[in-house]
């Protein structure tokens, strides 16, 4: 494949990328994943559950390697492992949202056990190196049309569930007492959200690999949180950022083939995060105020 040249005309560049079938799949699947990861990830940031999110992301690795061992479809491993881990991590916690000491230790242990299991499984298989690297760092550009279909279905289902529970979930996040008083099943919602997060993580890690899911999950939400204190506007900004980060990242890595995709996507995300910090600092400069005790 000859290295493509940038025309600096976004439309031409995009249609060039679109003309490669493998890239088309990556763009479609990536966009779906970016949307659901950014919205659910935004909620995760609001709930201060990044550690749980990251642990679920890591758990997809042993899931997939177990599936490989038993010759099952990789998706079974991804979804099975993340959902089970989400249930274990949440079941043991009495904290409503933010992770306290106990759930913190539980989540850390779950993560390490999952990874140890993954290592155990994969060290018995002959193709140790290749499969580990691809499971950890993803095979973004090797997505088949069938996988795109599965991701689309998962995307629609998780999207619908998210929209259905978003409002009560947010109330439960900020004021669990009030939510309980209003008859919202707070404990059940916590579990539902954990499972939702697990599904999104599984769908995402199938294309980005276990280690880089977290970028699509946390970066848009973290950036949106800086840009606006408004709730639903923040969610919308997060989705926009998620798509932007993904497309720019894929574009960068397409035109600069020496740079791995994971690096491009995370760098664009990190850049957006830093820029928004600077923007907010500049905006608040004229009426800078100290903290009041």
């Amino acid at each position, binding site marked *: 494949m000859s290295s493509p040249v940038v025309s600096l005309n976004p439309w031409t560049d995009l249609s060039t990328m679109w003309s490669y079938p493998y890239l088309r799949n990556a763009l479609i699947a990536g966009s779906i994943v970016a949307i659901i990861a950014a919205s659910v990830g935004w909620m995760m940031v609001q709930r201060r559950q990044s550690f749980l999110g990251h642990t679920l992301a890591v758990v997809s690795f042993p899931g997939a390697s177990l599936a490989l061992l038993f010759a099952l479809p990789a998706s079974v491993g991804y979804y099975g492992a993340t959902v089970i881990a989400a249930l274990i991590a949440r079941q043991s916690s009495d904290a409503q949202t933010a992770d306290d000491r106990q759930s*913190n*230790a539980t989540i850390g242990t779950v993560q390490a056990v999952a990874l140890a299991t993954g290592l155990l499984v994969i060290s018995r298989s002959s193709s140790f190196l290749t499969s580990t690297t691809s499971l950890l760092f993803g095979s973004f550009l090797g997505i088949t049309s069938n996988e795109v279909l599965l991701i689309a279905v998962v995307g629609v289902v998780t999207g619908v569930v998210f929209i259905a529970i978003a409002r009560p979930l947010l109330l439960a996040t900020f004021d669990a007492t009030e939510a309980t008083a209003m008859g919202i099943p707070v404990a059940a919602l916590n579990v539902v959200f954990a499972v939702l997060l697990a599904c999104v993580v599984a769908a995402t890690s199938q294309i980005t690999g276990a280690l880089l899911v977290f970028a699509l999950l946390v970066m848009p939400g973290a950036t949106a949180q800086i840009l606006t204190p408004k709730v639903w506007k923040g969610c919308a900004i997060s989705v926009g950022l998620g798509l932007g980060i993904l497309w720019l990242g894929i574009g960068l890595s397409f035109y600069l083939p020496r740079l791995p995709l994971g690096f*491009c996507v995370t760098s664009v995300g*990190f850049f957006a995060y830093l820029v928004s910090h600077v923007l907010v600092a500049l905006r608040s400069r004229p009426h800078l105020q100290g903290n009041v005790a």
Partner: protein
Amino acid sequence: MTASLSTTLLAPFMVNAFIAGTAIALLTGAVGSMLVLRVELFTADALSHVAFTGAMAALLLGLVTGVGLLIACISAAVVLALLGRRIGRSDAAIGTFFAWILGLGTLLLSLASTSSSGSTGTSSITVLFGSLFSLSSTGTWLAVIGSTLGLIALGIVLRPLIYSSIDASIAQARGVPVVGVSIAFAVIVGCATALSVQAVGALLFVGLVAAPAGAAMRATTNPFATTALSMGLSVAAVWTGLFLSGMIPSVPPSAAIILVAAAFFGTAKLSESLVARRAR
């Protein structure tokens, strides 16, 4: 069987593994109990990813891996401690930071694999999952010396550290240099991360700090006793893990260590809920 087992256990690589493993376990056990008390396990998680990038950078620059790890982990730990002071303890900020660091790691990995031959893939897996069995005697010495220094430093700051972790404002009013103490602790955590990456690997580090400390926290309400117990459990996990791995060669030592540590944690949790049920 007995003869072959004792031969395995007395082989030089096994002796090295036991010595280095014990030293590292003592340090991570102590550090872990403080990380759990301060609810900072996510920071440890982030640091372990920094370790991966640091090792890749060392590989690319031709530095000794251990040195690259130490520099990367300690500086990242201090950055996270300062960041936490400026913008409040924000897990989203930590997450964004380390997601990018990991992305940087993949770039370095790909640069290293194109510039050198096939050994890069293996060394990246070694960094991610670690192996006590492949430690050289220099590596063993580094682990022992590093852990001893880390433990001494932690011993010096331990009481003010616990005081400021329980309530920073009271400690500050009493004249404890809260910021200085937390930065000193960050350096110790960075050091512990860099050392344990050799033992259990970057990805399993969180388990080695979380599981023994989590189990110990359930057993006692004295923070110093928690620290001591966590150190003991950590050593027990490393020894049992190494022993198991020596008996069943197909089980990698890091996996065995983590699974044993997690079993301690599970047992503590289970017995606690049993006691709670009986009390009811």
